[in-house]
Each structure stands twice: as structure tokens, then as C-alpha cells.
């Protein structure tokens, strides 16, 4: 595609015969925020290495703003406007956050301007406002070695921004962060995405859901799937590579699971007992032997942490049987602890969406209470 900011054209990277990237095609427009996911060894980091010039493609070409990246060295690519944040925070530990940022903000990066010129005032101002943004203004002048892990992550993101790149590459920004820090990092990235093109590589699916618009799934060095987060999560091939086995859950079963999870989330409190109900009920429904049930339980557990609006999910149910099952399961879940007002409201919404005859509803609710007792 012409006019794309980044265009990876049939790139293969092989290390001694092992293909880290295999005929990979990828393209991204200016202003886009793209999340790349994939199991370990899918080639995500190699993908970034190709874009930043650390690794040259064995075959194929990578273009940034139309120029061939294999002809440039790392620092030249960086000056062209590609900024990279590494997986583990890599900041200069013996320099202060301010000095770290000043080095990145420097516009003339050859030897003699760096040696002979003072940091210009506009750059100093940029650095100050960046320190504010990443919340390190108070700690701007202590050695970066004294910062916490999360602060180092932010400092490195700040260093990226200081470079004022056109494309930001961010490799697992929330690895090892607390929930609060993760959320903050997500906000920071979203803010950045408003004025930059961003590629984020991430494992943490919860975080991906927070920030993702368009997701690319890598597998064994190639693009497996591209689409929105919901499409990705429902795609059987993606599920298969993520769990490293045949998908035992059909998309329909997944849907029912999702509805059940939404019910459980209704009061913003997903109690362990509710999770237990969903898992045991579903594994019983979908697998016959105990070993199969156990495997399914583990598999399902991975999908429970998502919240998707019911309005999106319910219309996707195809058969009356599925609707009935969804209702029964949902009722079981909210009945597993005392039903509160929010849960009741959400349940009413579900009922109206499902649009089942009243006598069926009554029958299913009774059955649900019965199976809950046992």
C-alpha cells in the first residue's frame, strides 16, 4: 500500500536456518495504534529488530516512510523517526531522569554539536514537561538507578517521546508492573497514540483489551490473523496457537462462556464461587470424560477475565438451545451468592435480549437452582 508509514514486504529472517520471521507481510498507516500479540517465539521481538535495523532481513524488504530500512544503521533509523522501548526497561542508570531525557531530546546527535553546544532552552522545556507527564518531576535529579521498575518503564517511554519519533515501538510495557501501574501505562500510551503511530507488543491480554483497536497476531514468524480484539479472541486459530493444542471450545461455546462471564462481572465483583460455577458447569456441559473436563476448565479459565457488553454477545447466539443454556448458566451464576440489585438489573436485560417464552424461563430457573444445590 502506498502512503503507509511502515510496510513490511515478504520479510524472512533466518538465524542458521531457523526462520524467526517467515514471509511476513505487514503494513501500518500513520496515526494507527497497533497491538501485536503472539505466543513465545512467534517472532515479535525479531519483528521490532527488523524495523529498528538491529537485524537485517534475509529476504524481503522493510520500508519506513518509503525508504528501505536495510540500507540504514540503527542510529540512522532512529533519526528517521523510529523510537523503540525495550522489553526490560533500559535507561542509563548512572544518569538522572532529566539527563536521560536530555540525551534523547537532543536534536543534533553527531559528536561535535553534542560536545560543543549547550542544551537549548526549548529542549530543556520539553524535558521539564515530559518529566511532569511521566510523573518523575520530583525525582528528576536523582540517579535513575534509584527508580522503581515502573518508574523506569515510564522514563524509557518518556525517552522515546523526547526523541519525537513518528513511530513508537513499545515492547511489553507492562511486564512486571502492578495493576495500578499497568492502568497508568495504558493511559500514557493512549495519550501518545493521539499524536504518534504506535506499535505495542504485549502478552497481557487484559492490557491489550484496554488499549487495542487493531490487533495483529503473529505465529511462527508470520501474520496469523489481523482484526479487532473481539474477532481475535473468537478466532479458533488464534485460540489454538495460544493454547498450543486443538481448540476444544467451539465459537458458540465460547459465546455462552462470555455471557456467563459478563453476568458474573455485573456487580463489578467476580467472586471465586461464581468462577467455580461457570467452570464446573461448562466443563460438564462440553466434555464427557473427567480428563477432558479438567483440560477444558484450565482452558476456559483464560477467557473469563474479559468483559464484553451483553448487547454485543446475545445476538450472536444461533439456536434456541444455546439461548436456553446461556440463560440457565447465567441464573446459576447470579444465584451462587445473594442476588443484589445490579445483578438483578443485568439479568433482566439478559432476559429481554434473549426473548424466551416465560414458561421456558421458569423451567430453566428451577433447573438452575436444582443443579446449584447438588
Amino acid at each position: 500500500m502506498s502512503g503507509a508509514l511502515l510496510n513490511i514486504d515478504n520479510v524472512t529472517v533466518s538465524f542458521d536456518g531457523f526462520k524467526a520471521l517467515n514471509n511476513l507481510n505487514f503494513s501500518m498507516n500513520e496515526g494507527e495504534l497497533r497491538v501485536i500479540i503472539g505466543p513465545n517465539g512467534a517472532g515479535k521481538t525479531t519483528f521490532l529488530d527488523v524495523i529498528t535495523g538491529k537485524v537485517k532481513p534475509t529476504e524481503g524488504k522493510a520500508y519506513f516512510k518509503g525508504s528501505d530500512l536495510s540500507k540504514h544503521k540503527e542510529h540512522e533509523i532512529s533519526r528517521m523517526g523510529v523510537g523503540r522501548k525495550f522489553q526490560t526497561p533500559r535507561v542509563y542508570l548512572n544518569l538522572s531522569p532529566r539527563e536521560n531525557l536530555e540525551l534523547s531530546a537532543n536534536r543534533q546527535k553527531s559528536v561535535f554539536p553534542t560536545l560543543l553546544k549547550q542544551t537549548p532552552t526549548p529542549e530543556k522545556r520539553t524535558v521539564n514537561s515530559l518529566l511532569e507527564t511521566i510523573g518523575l518531576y520530583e525525582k528528576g535529579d536523582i540517579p535513575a538507578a534509584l527508580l522503581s521498575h515502573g518508574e523506569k518503564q515510564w522514563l524509557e517511554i518518556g525517552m522515546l517521546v523526547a526523541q519525537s519519533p513518528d513511530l513508537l515501538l513499545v515492547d511489553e510495557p507492562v511486564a512486571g508492573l502492578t495493576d495500578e501501574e499497568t492502568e497508568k501505562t495504558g493511559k500514557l500510551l493512549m495519550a501518545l497514540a493521539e499524536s504518534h503511530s504506535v506499535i505495542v507488543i504485549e502478552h497481557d491480554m487484559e492490557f491489550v483489551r484496554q488499549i487495542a483497536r487493531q490487533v495483529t497476531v503473529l505465529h511462527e514468524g508470520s501474520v496469523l490473523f489481523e482484526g479487532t480484539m473481539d474477532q481475535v479472541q473468537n478466532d479458533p486459530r488464534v485460540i489454538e496457537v495460544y493454547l498450543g493444542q486443538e481448540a476444544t471450545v467451539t465459537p458458540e461455546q465460547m459465546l455462552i462462556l462470555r455471557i456467563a462471564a459478563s453476568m458474573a462481572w455485573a456487580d463489578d465483583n467476580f467472586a471465586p464461587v461464581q468462577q467455580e460455577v461457570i467452570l464446573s458447569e461448562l466443563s460438564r456441559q462440553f466434555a464427557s470424560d473427567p480428563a477432558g473436563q479438567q483440560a477444558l476448565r484450565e482452558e476456559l479459565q483464560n477467557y473469563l477475565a474479559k468483559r464484553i457488553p451483553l448487547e454485543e454477545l446475545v445476538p450472536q447466539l444461533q439456536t434456541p438451545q444455546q439461548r436456553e443454556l446461556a440463560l440457565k448458566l447465567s441464573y446459576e451464576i447470579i444465584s451462587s451468592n445473594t442476588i443484589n440489585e445490579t445483578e438483578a438489573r443485568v439479568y433482566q436485560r439478559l432476559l429481554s435480549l434473549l426473548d424466551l417464552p416465560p414458561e421456558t424461563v421458569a423451567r430453566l430457573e428451577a433447573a438452575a437452582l436444582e443443579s446449584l444445590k447438588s
Partner: protein
Amino acid sequence: MAVDLPIQPRRTSKALRQKRLLIEAGIVVAIALVLILVMPLVLTGFRLGLLGRFLSLAIVALGIDLIWGFTGLLSLGHGIFFALGGYAFAMYLQLTELPAGQLPEFFSLYGVSSLPWFWQPFYSLPFTLLAMVAIPAIVAGLFGYLVFRNRIRGVYFSILTQAALVVFFNFFNGQQKLINGTNGLKTATSVFLGQQVGGPEMRYFFYVATVIALALMYALCRWLTSGRFGRMLVAIRDDENRVRFSGYNPASFKVLVFAVSGAIAGIAGALYTVQSGIISPQAMDIGFSIEMVIWVAVGGRATLIGAILGAVLVNIARTMLSERFPDVWLFFQGALFLLVVTALPDGIVGWVRSRFGDRLPALFGGPSAVPAYVAEMELEAESYREKELADQ
């Protein structure tokens, strides 16, 4: 992260930094004056000569500290640059005051009848002074360019510097017809500025020149290691690959700083040569280049004052010990190095700094890892005092 601090810390103010810099310059000048004016009264001529030599070794230590302490490049071959500077000056001294058409004496021993071409420019004093600095710098820059461009780092770099040292040593050692081979060039009886180099007046002259050169090289290194360039060196030491992805080419920074370090070693070599009376391939002995590194380690890496102290103190210890127990020096030096590496990883200055912290003047490297707000409170207190004074 949002730590509640009593005062919003800001950066050390410009005025305070300038004040610190002035104090530091004052201390350097004072030490230089003591060395120049007082030491000759205290020490005998022989001891003063030794001190002069040690101070010239301190200059090469500064160069080592610049590349090792700050940039993380461990060179085990600085003897090359030291010797090149020494040879440049010694060649000039062989030719000066020589009747026209006559060759330095040693050439006749090997049946050389005309001066080798590369000796010709050394008739000129300005060229010699330039060559003393430029030849080591160019050799270092070229070596650095080839090595750093190919991203050779760490221990491989150190091995290469040592290999280069052996190459240079063998070349100088074997070339009797060009530079008198293993015998080296003697300078004691040569005449410089109308005086004999080995005579008392010239010895004092070179001693003063060494003190001044040391102060100037200290200022140069101080300038290089402060400011953005200095932080860049530290960044290269901390994480060279990160530097690339920030848009810098670390190789060019390393080439420059290695060349500067080579030039500094060249100046040191020239001053050492005239004060010891000879330059020979022994200056490119492997042990000597390793000793240079030991001085810096003992004094404290990445602290310029540490490099100077280390070079002077280790050499004083060496002289005192080998005068009494001629055989033990090498054992002592080995033990000293082990002690420093195991017990004082930051050297003498690092130890002093960690003991006495901030009460040291900027000469000792300035305030180290103090939380910014502490410095800020001091600053506030100071400006408050100033205000009080103004009110009175």
C-alpha cells in the same frame, strides 16, 4: 511515585554550579602553585625529579580514566601512545643543536648514512610539539575507528589493545636502523632552549611544564566529562546499544574520546621522557600498560582526581618500597590490586566519598547520589542566609 516533599526540588541553580566550579578551579591553581613553588624547597633535586615523573604518569592516568572510568573502554595498550609522544620529543632532541649534515651518533653504529625520511620534520620544534599530540591521537583514532566500527567491545577490545601493544613493541625493538631499536633514544645530554635537558634548570623547567600540563589536562577531561558529551560517555558505558536506538552513533563518540586519550598519553610520554632521560621500547612493556590501569583502579574510576592520586601514590609507594626491599615491589603491587578490587571497588576516592559524602569539594567529583531534595533544601537555606545578609 508522588512523594510529598517539603519543597519542590529544582535543579541545582546556575549560580551554585558556577560557584562550585570557581572553588574547584581555585583548588587546582592552589595545588599547582604549591607543587611549583613549595615542593622545590621541601624536596631534594632527585626527589623533585621523581615527583615530576610521577606527575607525568598522572597525566596518562587521566587519559585512561577518561576512556575506562567514564566510557567503559579498558585499554591495556596505552604504552603505545605514551611511547609515541616520548619518541616524538626525543627525536627532536636528537636533532637539535646538531651541526648541519651530521646524523645522531647511533646511526653510524648501524651504517646508516642518511637521515631516514620520517626524521626530517623533527628538525622543527613546532612540528614536534604538534606531533607529540597528533601522532598518538591519529594512531588511537585510526585503531579506534577500525575496532569500534566493527562493534568490538569489552574484553575483546582489551585483548586487541594489548595485541597492538605487542606489535608496536616488536617494531620499535627491532628497528635499529630507524630509531635505535632496543637501546632507545637518550635525551639527558641534548640541548633544549639553550640548556642541557639533564641540567638542573631544564629539570625544573620540565617539572613546571608537567604541573601545568597536568592542570590543563585535568581541565580538559573535566570539560569533556561534564555536560552532554560527558553524559553521553556514561550512557555508552551503561548501555551502548540503547544509545544507538536513541539516534546516536556510539562509535564516533568512542573514536573521539579514544583519540583524545591517546593524545593525553602522548603528552605524558614526552614529559616523562625528558625527565627520565630516555625513551625506549620498554615504555611499551605489557606490564607498564597494565600498571597504568592499576593506578586508576586504586585511585578510583570515573573520578579524575582519583586517577591522579592513584598514579602518584602508587608510584611513591613503589619507590619507597623498592628502595628498602628491592624484590617485593611486584608482590606488593599485585596485593594492592587485589585489595582494591575486592575491598575498595571504587578506589580511594570512591571510599572517601562514601565515607564523607557531600562535605567534599567538587574536585572530588562533586556531590554524588544525593536525593535532589536534600541539595535543594541546602540551596534554599543558602539563599535564605543571603537574603538575611542583604537585609542587614
